[in-house]
């Protein structure tokens, strides 16, 4: 027995607050700050329809089997929104991927998007392009595709690594409208520089909820915000305690029972 008390309490408190947020949201829909990246999906895909070009999407290096599963899930939720817009305007979509277990999921999401959007006949299984399990293969495939086809909209969301640069770099040269977002800090400055609409850090997770527009999803974002207030309070306590010259806070968070 080796109970991590402080971590467990933090985790339980976070879960409780999110649950309360969701429960409250069922009565009154909470306000959520607008995300320009999500609001312009329709406009961008509409532009693609005018130009007669495609939409390229990628969830990057992360899969569902590793520690990046939550980000990938959020990225797939955003992809669902793009697929719906593509179905609405009749724009072909292409999804590049290096995780074979995502292939069937992505096929389902895109098919569902075209079905609900109103152009079910446009969907083909070719829209998901799997390029082996390796990152370099994905990079070269994306570079080639973006330069050959010049998609009107180029997106990369999720747990992305170096392929971010290949995607947004080629996209910037090809003149695509770019959407990107990742919680991986290292690539955020590049995304901010080259993309028209970016999601920074935690915004990707929140966007996964906001994109659905369902009240209970928004409620979870509300719960998270309350937890952040607690975090700020904890930081203040930590500052006071360490300025007073004690290490009580350090001992508190490392407290292990059993």
């Amino acid at each position, binding site marked *: 027995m080796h109970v991590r008390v402080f971590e467990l309490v933090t985790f339980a408190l976070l879960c409780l607050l999110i649950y309360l947020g969701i429960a409250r949201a069922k009565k009154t829909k909470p306000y959520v700050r607008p995300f320009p990246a999500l609001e312009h999906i329709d406009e961008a895909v509409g532009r693609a329809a005018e130009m007669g070009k495609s939409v390229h999407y990628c969830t990057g290096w992360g899969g569902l*089997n590793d*520690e990046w599963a939550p980000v990938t899930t959020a990225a797939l939720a955003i992809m669902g929104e793009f697929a719906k817009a593509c179905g609405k305007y009749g724009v072909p979509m292409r999804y590049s991927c290096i995780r074979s277990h995502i292939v069937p999921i992505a096929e389902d999401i895109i098919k569902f998007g075209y079905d609900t959007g109103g152009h079910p006949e446009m969907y083909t299984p070719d829209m998901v392009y799997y390029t*082996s399990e390796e990152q370099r293969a994905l990079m070269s495939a994306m570079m*080639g595709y973006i330069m050959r086809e010049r998609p009107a909209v180029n997106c990369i969301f999720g747990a992305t690594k170096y392929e971010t640069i290949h995607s947004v770099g080629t996209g910037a040269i090809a003149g695509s409208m770019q959407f990107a977002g990742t919680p991986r800090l290292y690539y955020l400055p590049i995304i901010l520089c080259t993309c028209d609409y970016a999601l920074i850090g935690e915004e990707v997770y929140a966007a996964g909820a906001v994109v659905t527009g369902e009240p209970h999803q928004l409620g979870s974002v509300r719960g998270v915000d309350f937890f952040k207030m607690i975090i700020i309070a904890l930081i203040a306590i930590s*500052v006071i305690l360490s300025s007073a010259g004690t290490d009580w806070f350090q001992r508190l*968070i490392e407290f292990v029972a059993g």
Partner: protein
Amino acid sequence: MLKSRNVRRSEENMEWVLIVEAVMMLLIWSFLYRESLFYRLGEHILIGIYLGFSIYMGIDVLLKRVFVPLLSGNVTVGLALSIILGFLFYTRYVKPVSFMSRWSVAVLTGCGSAVAVSGAIKAMIVGQLPQGSWFAEGITGFNNFVMSIATVFVIVYFLFTFKPTRLLKSSAKFGRFWLMICFGVMLGTFLLSNIGYPIGMAMKLLTPPALYVTIIAILLIAADALYRRIKGT
């Protein structure tokens, strides 16, 4: 006499290998000029070999972890369950039971998400809480103060569901200021760690056997550029 024997032997068969390597590198670098058949060739060779490698590794893992224990009779409940879940992936190709493939995905995502959550609590949340003393000696106290302030205001920037009052707006702006400094640091250090790849490749392409291939490639590009100019495209 003894001294250079080894060196020479490895050198002899290196010549044509170096040329093959140079050709491969230049196939990829031809993209800098235009997306052409050379780049497409490199791209598809790359994907082909990597696909072979992925499948090879998959077979390797399955042999070591699944089939060798199966054949030697060490079948545990866990192994049996994982094999069943593995085969459930393929129910996707059988329409009436295709829903079962989602079970495997659910288990897979469950593992991944749990690893993510257990890693996040300590490293990303609790571990980031302790702050340094603001009254520490010398510049350290001031630095600790700056760090705490930056952390708090960045968190404020990521508050999504509060109505934008003037106070919140200006706090968020201040948070964004710190975010941008953080991104600037990332952008500034990015070049140092990544510029090495093209420099290393340029060095290889400029050493003799590869240099000849490089010269041929440059001539080809020049000829193509000239031809296109004359043709007027």
